[in-house]
Protein backbone atom coordinates (compact mmCIF):
# COMPACT_ATOMS: atom_id res chain seq x y z
CA UNK A 1 0.00 0.00 0.00
CA UNK A 2 1.11 3.52 -0.72
CA UNK A 3 0.77 4.60 2.88
CA UNK A 4 3.18 1.93 4.04
CA UNK A 5 5.95 2.70 1.61
CA UNK A 6 5.87 6.42 2.39
CA UNK A 7 5.15 5.83 6.02
CA UNK A 8 8.17 6.34 8.33
CA UNK A 9 7.80 9.61 10.15
CA UNK A 10 5.60 11.45 7.76
CA UNK A 11 7.00 14.93 7.86
CA UNK A 12 5.08 18.13 7.48
CA UNK A 13 6.28 18.41 3.89
CA UNK A 14 4.92 15.04 2.73
CA UNK A 15 1.30 14.87 1.71
CA UNK A 16 -0.81 12.75 4.05
CA UNK A 17 -3.10 10.42 2.04
CA UNK A 18 -6.84 11.00 2.43
CA UNK A 19 -7.49 8.39 5.16
CA UNK A 20 -11.15 9.35 5.52
CA UNK A 21 -11.88 8.69 1.85
CA UNK A 22 -9.94 5.42 1.93
CA UNK A 23 -11.80 4.18 5.01
CA UNK A 24 -15.07 5.27 3.47
CA UNK A 25 -14.45 3.34 0.25
CA UNK A 26 -13.33 0.17 2.03
CA UNK A 27 -16.36 0.49 4.31
CA UNK A 28 -18.76 1.05 1.43
CA UNK A 29 -17.60 -2.09 -0.39
CA UNK A 30 -17.58 -4.34 2.68
CA UNK A 31 -20.83 -2.97 4.12
CA UNK A 32 -22.59 -3.52 0.84
CA UNK A 33 -21.18 -7.04 0.57
CA UNK A 34 -22.19 -7.97 4.11
CA UNK A 35 -25.68 -6.54 3.68
CA UNK A 36 -26.18 -8.51 0.47
CA UNK A 37 -24.97 -11.67 2.22
CA UNK A 38 -27.24 -11.03 5.20
CA UNK A 39 -30.27 -10.34 3.05
CA UNK A 40 -29.98 -13.09 0.47
CA UNK A 41 -27.80 -15.83 1.98
CA UNK A 42 -28.25 -15.72 5.75
CA UNK A 43 -31.70 -14.12 5.76
CA UNK A 44 -33.84 -17.10 4.78
CA UNK A 45 -32.24 -19.16 7.57
CA UNK A 46 -32.75 -16.63 10.35
CA UNK A 47 -35.12 -17.63 13.15
CA UNK A 48 -37.95 -18.38 13.47
CA UNK A 49 -38.37 -19.37 9.82
CA UNK A 50 -41.31 -18.58 7.60
CA UNK A 51 -43.96 -21.15 8.44
CA UNK A 52 -46.48 -18.49 9.46
CA UNK A 53 -47.13 -14.79 9.02
CA UNK A 54 -45.89 -13.85 12.48
CA UNK A 55 -42.73 -15.96 12.01
CA UNK A 56 -42.23 -14.37 8.62
CA UNK A 57 -42.61 -10.92 10.12
CA UNK A 58 -40.10 -11.67 12.84
CA UNK A 59 -37.62 -13.04 10.33
CA UNK A 60 -38.03 -9.90 8.24
CA UNK A 61 -37.47 -7.70 11.29
CA UNK A 62 -34.35 -9.62 12.27
CA UNK A 63 -33.11 -9.29 8.68
CA UNK A 64 -33.65 -5.52 8.73
CA UNK A 65 -31.96 -5.17 12.12
CA UNK A 66 -28.99 -7.26 10.99
CA UNK A 67 -28.72 -5.31 7.75
CA UNK A 68 -28.68 -2.07 9.72
CA UNK A 69 -26.26 -3.29 12.35
CA UNK A 70 -23.75 -4.86 9.94
CA UNK A 71 -22.48 -1.57 8.38
CA UNK A 72 -21.94 -0.13 11.87
CA UNK A 73 -19.99 -3.18 12.94
CA UNK A 74 -18.05 -3.25 9.68
CA UNK A 75 -17.13 0.41 10.21
CA UNK A 76 -15.83 -0.24 13.72
CA UNK A 77 -13.79 -3.22 12.53
CA UNK A 78 -12.35 -1.35 9.54
CA UNK A 79 -11.41 1.60 11.71
CA UNK A 80 -9.69 -0.79 14.09
CA UNK A 81 -7.81 -2.79 11.45
CA UNK A 82 -6.93 0.30 9.36
CA UNK A 83 -5.45 1.98 12.43
CA UNK A 84 -3.46 -1.11 13.33
CA UNK A 85 -1.94 -1.29 9.86
CA UNK A 86 -1.52 2.34 8.84
CA UNK A 87 -0.96 4.11 12.12
CA UNK A 88 1.03 1.50 13.96
CA UNK A 89 4.22 2.50 15.76
CA UNK A 90 7.20 2.33 13.45
CA UNK A 91 10.82 1.86 14.38
CA UNK A 92 12.69 5.08 14.96
CA UNK A 93 9.51 7.08 15.35
CA UNK A 94 9.72 8.61 18.83
CA UNK A 95 7.44 11.51 18.05
CA UNK A 96 4.20 12.12 19.93
CA UNK A 97 0.98 12.25 17.99
CA UNK A 98 -0.51 15.70 17.41
CA UNK A 99 -2.61 16.92 20.40
CA UNK A 100 -6.24 16.88 19.28
CA UNK A 101 -8.87 18.67 21.34
CA UNK A 102 -12.23 17.68 19.91
CA UNK A 103 -13.36 17.69 16.33
CA UNK A 104 -16.67 19.39 15.71
CA UNK A 105 -17.21 17.78 12.32
CA UNK A 106 -16.65 14.25 13.66
CA UNK A 107 -18.85 14.91 16.69
CA UNK A 108 -21.72 16.39 14.68
CA UNK A 109 -21.54 13.58 12.12
CA UNK A 110 -21.43 11.00 14.90
CA UNK A 111 -24.42 12.37 16.83
CA UNK A 112 -26.46 12.95 13.68
CA UNK A 113 -25.82 9.49 12.29
CA UNK A 114 -26.57 7.61 15.49
CA UNK A 115 -29.69 9.71 16.09
CA UNK A 116 -30.93 8.98 12.58
CA UNK A 117 -30.26 5.24 13.00
CA UNK A 118 -32.08 5.06 16.35
CA UNK A 119 -35.04 7.12 15.06
CA UNK A 120 -35.27 4.91 11.97
CA UNK A 121 -35.37 1.81 14.16
CA UNK A 122 -38.01 3.42 16.35
CA UNK A 123 -40.13 4.28 13.31
CA UNK A 124 -39.64 0.86 11.75
CA UNK A 125 -40.45 -0.98 14.98
CA UNK A 126 -43.60 1.05 15.61
CA UNK A 127 -44.76 0.57 12.03
CA UNK A 128 -44.14 -3.17 12.19
CA UNK A 129 -46.05 -3.43 15.46
CA UNK A 130 -49.26 -1.92 14.12
CA UNK A 131 -48.83 -2.60 10.42
CA UNK A 132 -51.88 -4.32 9.00
CA UNK A 133 -54.11 -7.07 10.35
CA UNK A 134 -52.75 -9.44 12.91
CA UNK A 135 -49.64 -7.44 13.59
CA UNK A 136 -48.28 -7.30 17.11
CA UNK A 137 -45.36 -9.44 16.00
CA UNK A 138 -47.04 -12.65 17.18
CA UNK A 139 -46.80 -11.79 20.83
CA UNK A 140 -49.63 -11.69 23.32
CA UNK A 141 -51.50 -8.39 23.08
CA UNK A 142 -53.67 -8.76 26.16
CA UNK A 143 -57.45 -9.27 26.22
CA UNK A 144 -58.24 -6.48 23.76
CA UNK A 145 -55.60 -6.23 21.03
CA UNK A 146 -55.16 -2.93 19.21
CA UNK A 147 -54.77 -4.57 15.81
CA UNK A 148 -56.96 -7.50 14.83
CA UNK A 149 -57.30 -9.52 11.64
CA UNK A 150 -60.67 -9.22 9.90
CA UNK A 151 -63.44 -11.08 11.73
CA UNK A 152 -61.52 -11.47 15.00
CA UNK A 153 -63.67 -12.99 17.72
CA UNK A 154 -63.21 -11.44 21.09
CA UNK A 155 -66.35 -12.19 23.06
CA UNK A 156 -67.20 -15.66 24.32
CA UNK A 157 -70.41 -15.71 22.24
CA UNK A 158 -68.49 -14.80 19.07
CA UNK A 159 -65.82 -17.35 19.78
CA UNK A 160 -68.35 -20.12 20.22
CA UNK A 161 -70.10 -19.45 16.91
CA UNK A 162 -69.67 -22.36 14.49
CA UNK A 163 -66.43 -22.56 12.58
CA UNK A 164 -66.09 -20.78 9.28
CA UNK A 165 -62.99 -20.85 7.11
CA UNK A 166 -63.46 -17.15 6.34
CA UNK A 167 -63.06 -16.09 9.98
CA UNK A 168 -60.10 -16.62 12.30
CA UNK A 169 -59.90 -20.02 13.93
CA UNK A 170 -60.13 -19.58 17.70
CA UNK A 171 -57.88 -21.77 19.84
CA UNK A 172 -57.81 -21.41 23.58
CA UNK A 173 -54.44 -22.31 25.03
CA UNK A 174 -54.81 -23.56 28.61
CA UNK A 175 -51.53 -23.82 30.46
CA UNK A 176 -51.23 -25.99 33.55
CA UNK A 177 -48.32 -27.57 35.35
CA UNK A 178 -46.85 -29.09 33.12
CA UNK A 179 -48.80 -29.33 29.93
CA UNK A 180 -50.61 -27.14 27.44
CA UNK A 181 -54.08 -28.16 26.37
CA UNK A 182 -55.94 -26.62 23.46
CA UNK A 183 -59.63 -25.88 23.37
CA UNK A 184 -61.51 -25.35 20.10
CA UNK A 185 -64.71 -23.39 20.95
CA UNK A 186 -65.89 -23.33 17.33
CA UNK A 187 -65.99 -27.13 17.36
CA UNK A 188 -68.14 -27.66 20.42
CA UNK A 189 -65.37 -26.64 22.81
CA UNK A 190 -63.44 -29.91 22.80
CA UNK A 191 -60.06 -29.96 24.49
CA UNK A 192 -56.97 -31.81 23.29
CA UNK A 193 -53.22 -32.01 23.83
CA UNK A 194 -52.44 -31.70 20.11
CA UNK A 195 -52.16 -28.32 18.41
CA UNK A 196 -53.54 -28.44 14.87
CA UNK A 197 -53.94 -25.30 12.75
CA UNK A 198 -55.12 -24.82 9.16
CA UNK A 199 -53.00 -23.34 6.41
CA UNK A 200 -53.83 -19.84 5.09
CA UNK A 201 -56.31 -18.94 7.78
CA UNK A 202 -55.90 -16.49 10.62
CA UNK A 203 -55.52 -18.24 13.96
CA UNK A 204 -56.46 -16.47 17.16
CA UNK A 205 -54.80 -17.86 20.27
CA UNK A 206 -56.58 -17.03 23.51
CA UNK A 207 -53.89 -17.87 26.02
CA UNK A 208 -54.59 -18.40 29.70
CA UNK A 209 -53.42 -20.49 32.66
CA UNK A 210 -55.24 -22.42 35.35
CA UNK A 211 -52.41 -22.30 37.85
CA UNK A 212 -49.14 -20.37 37.78
CA UNK A 213 -47.66 -18.17 35.04
CA UNK A 214 -46.54 -20.07 31.96
CA UNK A 215 -45.59 -18.85 28.50
CA UNK A 216 -46.99 -20.32 25.30
CA UNK A 217 -44.24 -20.36 22.70
CA UNK A 218 -45.20 -21.91 19.38
CA UNK A 219 -41.81 -21.34 17.84
CA UNK A 220 -42.44 -22.04 14.15
CA UNK A 221 -45.68 -20.05 14.23
CA UNK A 222 -43.83 -17.02 15.59
CA UNK A 223 -46.23 -16.86 18.52
CA UNK A 224 -45.11 -16.24 22.06
CA UNK A 225 -47.59 -15.15 24.70
CA UNK A 226 -47.59 -15.25 28.49
CA UNK A 227 -50.16 -17.59 29.99
CA UNK A 228 -51.36 -15.85 33.13
CA UNK A 229 -54.07 -17.14 35.46
CA UNK A 230 -57.20 -15.02 35.17
CA UNK A 231 -55.98 -13.23 32.04
CA UNK A 232 -56.93 -13.80 28.42
CA UNK A 233 -53.87 -12.99 26.33
CA UNK A 234 -54.65 -12.82 22.61
CA UNK A 235 -52.09 -13.45 19.85
CA UNK A 236 -52.57 -13.87 16.11
CA UNK A 237 -50.75 -15.66 13.35
CA UNK A 238 -51.54 -16.97 9.90
CA UNK A 239 -49.90 -20.31 9.03
CA UNK A 240 -48.56 -20.06 5.49
CA UNK A 241 -46.91 -23.42 4.94
CA UNK A 242 -47.54 -27.00 5.97
CA UNK A 243 -45.18 -28.28 8.62
CA UNK A 244 -44.74 -29.32 12.20
CA UNK A 245 -44.81 -27.10 15.26
CA UNK A 246 -43.01 -27.40 18.57
CA UNK A 247 -44.60 -25.70 21.54
CA UNK A 248 -42.55 -24.93 24.62
CA UNK A 249 -43.27 -23.28 27.91
CA UNK A 250 -41.00 -20.27 28.21
CA UNK A 251 -41.64 -19.23 31.78
CA UNK A 252 -40.06 -21.13 34.65
CA UNK A 253 -43.13 -22.81 36.14
CA UNK A 254 -41.96 -25.49 38.53
CA UNK A 255 -40.22 -28.84 38.71
CA UNK A 256 -40.99 -30.11 35.18
CA UNK A 257 -40.97 -26.77 33.36
CA UNK A 258 -38.18 -28.08 31.13
CA UNK A 259 -40.36 -31.00 30.05
CA UNK A 260 -43.36 -28.81 29.28
CA UNK A 261 -43.46 -29.07 25.52
CA UNK A 262 -45.60 -30.68 22.88
CA UNK A 263 -46.07 -30.82 19.16
CA UNK A 264 -48.56 -29.85 16.54
CA UNK A 265 -48.84 -29.21 12.85
CA UNK A 266 -50.10 -26.93 10.13
CA UNK A 267 -52.59 -28.90 8.02
CA UNK A 268 -54.40 -28.20 4.81
CA UNK A 269 -57.81 -26.64 5.28
CA UNK A 270 -59.62 -29.92 4.52
CA UNK A 271 -57.28 -32.07 6.63
CA UNK A 272 -57.76 -29.66 9.51
CA UNK A 273 -61.53 -29.75 9.27
CA UNK A 274 -61.65 -33.52 9.28
CA UNK A 275 -59.17 -33.64 12.17
CA UNK A 276 -61.29 -31.19 14.15
CA UNK A 277 -64.54 -33.02 13.44
CA UNK A 278 -62.98 -36.35 14.36
CA UNK A 279 -61.50 -34.90 17.56
CA UNK A 280 -64.83 -33.38 18.50
CA UNK A 281 -66.38 -36.85 18.32
CA UNK A 282 -63.42 -38.56 20.01
CA UNK A 283 -63.47 -36.21 22.99
CA UNK A 284 -67.27 -35.91 23.23
CA UNK A 285 -67.45 -37.75 26.57
CA UNK A 286 -64.86 -35.59 28.26
CA UNK A 287 -66.09 -32.36 26.63
CA UNK A 288 -69.37 -32.80 28.50
CA UNK A 289 -67.42 -32.71 31.78
CA UNK A 290 -65.51 -29.52 31.01
CA UNK A 291 -66.60 -26.19 32.46
CA UNK A 292 -68.48 -23.97 30.00
CA UNK A 293 -66.11 -22.27 27.60
CA UNK A 294 -64.87 -18.99 29.06
CA UNK A 295 -61.93 -16.73 28.31
CA UNK A 296 -60.42 -17.45 31.73
CA UNK A 297 -60.87 -20.04 34.48
CA UNK A 298 -60.30 -19.10 38.09
CA UNK A 299 -57.78 -21.53 39.55
CA UNK A 300 -58.66 -20.72 43.16
CA UNK A 301 -62.45 -20.71 43.16
CA UNK A 302 -64.18 -23.29 41.02
CA UNK A 303 -67.60 -24.00 42.44
CA UNK A 304 -67.90 -27.57 41.17
CA UNK A 305 -64.76 -28.57 43.03
CA UNK A 306 -66.18 -27.94 46.48
CA UNK A 307 -69.63 -29.15 45.42
CA UNK A 308 -68.43 -32.71 44.96
CA UNK A 309 -67.07 -33.00 48.46
CA UNK A 310 -70.05 -31.26 50.01
CA UNK A 311 -72.40 -33.53 48.07
CA UNK A 312 -70.56 -36.52 49.46
CA UNK A 313 -70.78 -35.09 52.96
CA UNK A 314 -67.12 -34.24 53.37
CA UNK A 315 -66.98 -30.67 54.52
CA UNK A 316 -63.29 -30.40 55.23
CA UNK A 317 -62.70 -28.28 52.17
CA UNK A 318 -65.44 -25.92 53.28
CA UNK A 319 -67.25 -26.06 49.96
CA UNK A 320 -64.75 -23.59 48.53
CA UNK A 321 -61.92 -25.57 47.17
CA UNK A 322 -58.92 -23.39 47.78
CA UNK A 323 -60.25 -20.19 49.28
CA UNK A 324 -58.25 -17.13 48.20
CA UNK A 325 -56.35 -17.02 51.48
CA UNK A 326 -55.40 -20.70 51.39
CA UNK A 327 -52.99 -21.02 48.49
CA UNK A 328 -49.85 -19.91 50.20
CA UNK A 329 -46.30 -20.66 49.32
CA UNK A 330 -44.44 -22.45 52.12
Amino acid at each position, binding site marked *: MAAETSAPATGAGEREPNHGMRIFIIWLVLALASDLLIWFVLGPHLPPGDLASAANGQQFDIKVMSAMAAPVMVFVLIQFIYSLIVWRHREGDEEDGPPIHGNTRVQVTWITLTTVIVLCLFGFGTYELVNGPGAGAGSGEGPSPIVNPPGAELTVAQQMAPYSASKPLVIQVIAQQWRFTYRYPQFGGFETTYLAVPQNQWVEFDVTSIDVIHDFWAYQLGVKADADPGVNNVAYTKPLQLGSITVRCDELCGLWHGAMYDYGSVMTQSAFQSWATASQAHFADVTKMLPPYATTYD*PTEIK*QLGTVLVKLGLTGAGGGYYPPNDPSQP
Partner: protein
Amino acid sequence: MSLPVRVGTLLVAFLAVVGGVIFVVIHFLLAGPPVVDYAAGVAPGQPVSIMLQEDPQNTVSNHPDWVSYFIKDPKTGAWVHTTLFQVPAGSRVNVTILGYDGCTPLRNPFWGMVTGTIGGVEDVNGSPVSVLNSWASCSVGHTFSIPGIGLNVPVASPTTLSANKNVCGLSPCTSGPHTTVTFSFNAPKSDGDYFWQCRVPCGLGYLDGFGGPMQTIGFMTGQMEVVS
Protein backbone atom coordinates in the same frame (compact mmCIF):
# COMPACT_ATOMS: atom_id res chain seq x y z
CA MET B 1 -6.26 -9.44 66.93
CA SER B 2 -2.97 -11.27 66.55
CA LEU B 3 -2.03 -12.87 63.27
CA PRO B 4 -2.53 -16.52 64.37
CA VAL B 5 -6.02 -15.66 65.68
CA ARG B 6 -6.94 -13.96 62.41
CA VAL B 7 -5.61 -16.84 60.32
CA GLY B 8 -7.38 -19.29 62.59
CA THR B 9 -10.68 -17.43 62.29
CA LEU B 10 -10.36 -17.29 58.52
CA LEU B 11 -9.54 -20.98 58.37
CA VAL B 12 -12.54 -21.91 60.50
CA ALA B 13 -14.83 -19.72 58.39
CA PHE B 14 -13.44 -21.22 55.19
CA LEU B 15 -13.91 -24.77 56.45
CA ALA B 16 -17.46 -23.96 57.55
CA VAL B 17 -18.33 -22.75 54.04
CA VAL B 18 -16.71 -25.78 52.37
CA GLY B 19 -18.47 -28.09 54.81
CA GLY B 20 -21.76 -26.38 54.08
CA VAL B 21 -21.32 -26.81 50.33
CA ILE B 22 -20.41 -30.48 50.71
CA PHE B 23 -23.43 -31.03 52.95
CA VAL B 24 -25.78 -29.35 50.45
CA VAL B 25 -24.38 -31.38 47.54
CA ILE B 26 -24.58 -34.70 49.34
CA HIS B 27 -27.80 -34.08 51.22
CA PHE B 28 -29.89 -32.36 48.55
CA LEU B 29 -28.36 -32.92 45.15
CA LEU B 30 -26.95 -36.43 45.22
CA ALA B 31 -29.38 -38.02 47.62
CA GLY B 32 -32.64 -39.12 46.08
CA PRO B 33 -35.17 -41.85 46.47
CA PRO B 34 -34.11 -45.30 45.20
CA VAL B 35 -35.04 -46.63 41.77
CA VAL B 36 -37.24 -49.73 41.78
CA ASP B 37 -35.91 -52.00 39.06
CA TYR B 38 -38.51 -53.87 37.04
CA ALA B 39 -36.10 -54.37 34.16
CA ALA B 40 -33.59 -56.67 35.89
CA GLY B 41 -33.65 -60.14 34.39
CA VAL B 42 -36.34 -59.21 31.88
CA ALA B 43 -35.43 -59.34 28.20
CA PRO B 44 -36.36 -56.20 26.27
CA GLY B 45 -39.78 -56.60 24.76
CA GLN B 46 -41.00 -58.99 27.47
CA PRO B 47 -43.95 -57.79 29.55
CA VAL B 48 -43.47 -56.52 33.10
CA SER B 49 -45.96 -55.97 35.86
CA ILE B 50 -45.49 -52.99 38.11
CA MET B 51 -47.40 -52.09 41.24
CA LEU B 52 -47.94 -48.76 42.93
CA GLN B 53 -50.15 -47.42 45.69
CA GLU B 54 -51.24 -43.88 46.43
CA ASP B 55 -51.68 -42.89 50.06
CA PRO B 56 -53.36 -39.98 51.83
CA GLN B 57 -50.10 -39.40 53.70
CA ASN B 58 -46.50 -40.54 53.88
CA THR B 59 -45.74 -41.42 57.46
CA VAL B 60 -42.35 -42.90 56.60
CA SER B 61 -41.00 -39.57 55.33
CA ASN B 62 -40.16 -36.25 56.91
CA HIS B 63 -43.39 -34.89 55.38
CA PRO B 64 -45.91 -37.17 57.08
CA ASP B 65 -48.91 -35.11 55.90
CA TRP B 66 -48.01 -35.15 52.22
CA VAL B 67 -49.96 -37.36 49.84
CA SER B 68 -47.68 -39.90 48.28
CA TYR B 69 -47.15 -42.76 45.89
CA PHE B 70 -45.23 -45.91 46.86
CA ILE B 71 -43.77 -48.52 44.52
CA LYS B 72 -43.56 -52.24 45.24
CA ASP B 73 -40.13 -53.79 44.91
CA PRO B 74 -40.58 -56.92 42.73
CA LYS B 75 -37.72 -58.75 44.47
CA THR B 76 -38.59 -58.20 48.11
CA GLY B 77 -42.29 -57.42 47.80
CA ALA B 78 -41.75 -54.40 50.06
CA TRP B 79 -43.35 -51.01 49.41
CA VAL B 80 -40.63 -48.47 48.74
CA HIS B 81 -40.98 -44.73 49.42
CA THR B 82 -40.03 -43.64 45.90
CA THR B 83 -41.50 -42.63 42.56
CA LEU B 84 -38.62 -43.80 40.37
CA PHE B 85 -38.83 -47.07 38.50
CA GLN B 86 -37.15 -48.84 35.63
CA VAL B 87 -38.82 -50.82 32.85
CA PRO B 88 -37.35 -52.59 29.80
CA ALA B 89 -37.60 -50.76 26.45
CA GLY B 90 -40.42 -51.84 24.16
CA SER B 91 -42.13 -53.97 26.76
CA ARG B 92 -45.79 -54.08 27.64
CA VAL B 93 -46.10 -52.61 31.11
CA ASN B 94 -49.00 -53.95 33.15
CA VAL B 95 -49.74 -51.51 35.94
CA THR B 96 -51.69 -52.04 39.13
CA ILE B 97 -52.37 -49.03 41.32
CA LEU B 98 -54.00 -49.38 44.71
CA GLY B 99 -55.92 -46.18 45.36
CA TYR B 100 -55.96 -45.73 49.11
CA ASP B 101 -56.59 -41.99 49.06
CA GLY B 102 -59.97 -40.31 49.07
CA CYS B 103 -61.28 -38.19 46.23
CA THR B 104 -60.18 -34.72 45.17
CA PRO B 105 -61.58 -33.02 42.06
CA LEU B 106 -59.21 -32.34 39.19
CA ARG B 107 -58.43 -28.73 38.43
CA ASN B 108 -58.98 -29.49 34.75
CA PRO B 109 -61.63 -32.21 34.33
CA PHE B 110 -60.09 -32.95 30.91
CA TRP B 111 -57.65 -35.22 32.75
CA GLY B 112 -60.54 -37.43 33.77
CA MET B 113 -60.17 -39.12 30.39
CA VAL B 114 -58.02 -42.23 30.11
CA THR B 115 -55.49 -41.86 27.29
CA GLY B 116 -52.44 -43.76 26.13
CA THR B 117 -53.36 -47.14 27.64
CA ILE B 118 -53.85 -50.27 25.59
CA GLY B 119 -57.53 -50.22 24.68
CA GLY B 120 -57.94 -46.67 25.94
CA VAL B 121 -59.36 -47.87 29.26
CA GLU B 122 -58.42 -48.60 32.84
CA ASP B 123 -60.06 -51.32 34.88
CA VAL B 124 -61.49 -50.06 38.15
CA ASN B 125 -62.05 -53.04 40.45
CA GLY B 126 -62.30 -55.17 37.32
CA SER B 127 -64.64 -53.01 35.23
CA PRO B 128 -63.34 -51.04 32.25
CA VAL B 129 -63.67 -47.27 32.51
CA SER B 130 -62.61 -44.63 29.96
CA VAL B 131 -63.68 -41.41 31.71
CA LEU B 132 -64.07 -40.39 35.32
CA ASN B 133 -65.91 -37.20 36.11
CA SER B 134 -64.26 -35.83 39.23
CA TRP B 135 -66.49 -32.75 39.17
CA ALA B 136 -69.75 -34.67 39.20
CA SER B 137 -69.01 -37.20 41.91
CA CYS B 138 -66.35 -38.39 44.28
CA SER B 139 -64.36 -40.53 41.88
CA VAL B 140 -60.72 -39.59 41.40
CA GLY B 141 -57.92 -39.82 43.96
CA HIS B 142 -54.89 -38.86 41.92
CA THR B 143 -53.73 -39.40 38.36
CA PHE B 144 -50.83 -41.31 36.89
CA SER B 145 -49.75 -39.35 33.83
CA ILE B 146 -46.67 -39.71 31.62
CA PRO B 147 -46.99 -36.78 29.17
CA GLY B 148 -44.03 -37.95 27.08
CA ILE B 149 -46.00 -40.99 25.89
CA GLY B 150 -49.46 -39.44 26.07
CA LEU B 151 -50.45 -41.58 29.05
CA ASN B 152 -53.09 -40.22 31.42
CA VAL B 153 -54.89 -42.40 33.92
CA PRO B 154 -57.20 -40.87 36.54
CA VAL B 155 -56.82 -43.25 39.46
CA ALA B 156 -60.24 -44.02 40.86
CA SER B 157 -60.81 -43.36 44.55
CA PRO B 158 -63.19 -45.02 46.97
CA THR B 159 -66.53 -43.33 46.35
CA THR B 160 -68.52 -43.58 49.56
CA LEU B 161 -68.59 -41.16 52.46
CA SER B 162 -67.63 -43.80 55.01
CA ALA B 163 -64.69 -44.97 52.89
CA ASN B 164 -63.52 -41.40 52.40
CA LYS B 165 -63.77 -40.76 56.13
CA ASN B 166 -61.87 -43.90 57.04
CA VAL B 167 -58.91 -43.84 54.69
CA CYS B 168 -55.78 -45.63 55.81
CA GLY B 169 -53.67 -43.52 58.14
CA LEU B 170 -50.33 -45.31 58.17
CA SER B 171 -48.04 -45.56 55.15
CA PRO B 172 -47.43 -47.66 53.22
CA CYS B 173 -51.05 -48.72 53.43
CA THR B 174 -51.81 -52.41 53.81
CA SER B 175 -55.45 -52.19 54.77
CA GLY B 176 -58.35 -49.79 54.55
CA PRO B 177 -60.79 -48.84 51.82
CA HIS B 178 -59.19 -48.69 48.40
CA THR B 179 -59.74 -49.26 44.72
CA THR B 180 -57.69 -51.51 42.47
CA VAL B 181 -56.92 -49.85 39.17
CA THR B 182 -55.21 -51.82 36.41
CA PHE B 183 -54.15 -50.83 32.91
CA SER B 184 -51.39 -51.55 30.42
CA PHE B 185 -49.27 -49.43 28.14
CA ASN B 186 -46.35 -49.99 25.83
CA ALA B 187 -43.00 -48.66 27.01
CA PRO B 188 -41.08 -46.63 24.43
CA LYS B 189 -38.71 -48.63 22.23
CA SER B 190 -35.76 -46.40 22.96
CA ASP B 191 -34.02 -45.66 26.23
CA GLY B 192 -34.84 -42.52 28.11
CA ASP B 193 -36.26 -40.95 31.22
CA TYR B 194 -39.93 -40.08 31.14
CA PHE B 195 -41.28 -37.96 33.94
CA TRP B 196 -44.66 -38.75 35.38
CA GLN B 197 -46.92 -36.67 37.56
CA CYS B 198 -50.27 -36.44 39.26
CA ARG B 199 -52.76 -33.91 37.84
CA VAL B 200 -55.01 -33.60 40.86
CA PRO B 201 -54.13 -30.43 42.78
CA CYS B 202 -53.43 -32.49 45.87
CA GLY B 203 -50.68 -30.38 47.40
CA LEU B 204 -53.15 -28.93 49.88
CA GLY B 205 -51.98 -25.68 51.42
CA TYR B 206 -49.63 -24.89 48.55
CA LEU B 207 -50.21 -22.43 45.71
CA ASP B 208 -53.07 -23.78 43.59
CA GLY B 209 -52.57 -27.16 45.28
CA PHE B 210 -49.55 -27.74 43.10
CA GLY B 211 -46.59 -27.31 45.43
CA GLY B 212 -45.10 -29.61 48.04
CA PRO B 213 -45.72 -33.27 47.18
CA MET B 214 -46.71 -32.37 43.60
CA GLN B 215 -43.23 -31.10 42.87
CA THR B 216 -41.19 -33.48 45.00
CA ILE B 217 -39.82 -36.74 43.65
CA GLY B 218 -40.80 -39.56 45.96
CA PHE B 219 -44.34 -38.22 46.48
CA MET B 220 -46.63 -37.24 43.58
CA THR B 221 -44.18 -37.13 40.71
CA GLY B 222 -41.26 -39.18 39.49
CA GLN B 223 -39.59 -40.77 36.54
CA MET B 224 -39.95 -43.91 34.49
CA GLU B 225 -36.54 -44.95 33.26
CA VAL B 226 -36.70 -46.99 30.08
CA VAL B 227 -33.64 -49.21 29.65
CA SER B 228 -32.56 -51.84 27.15
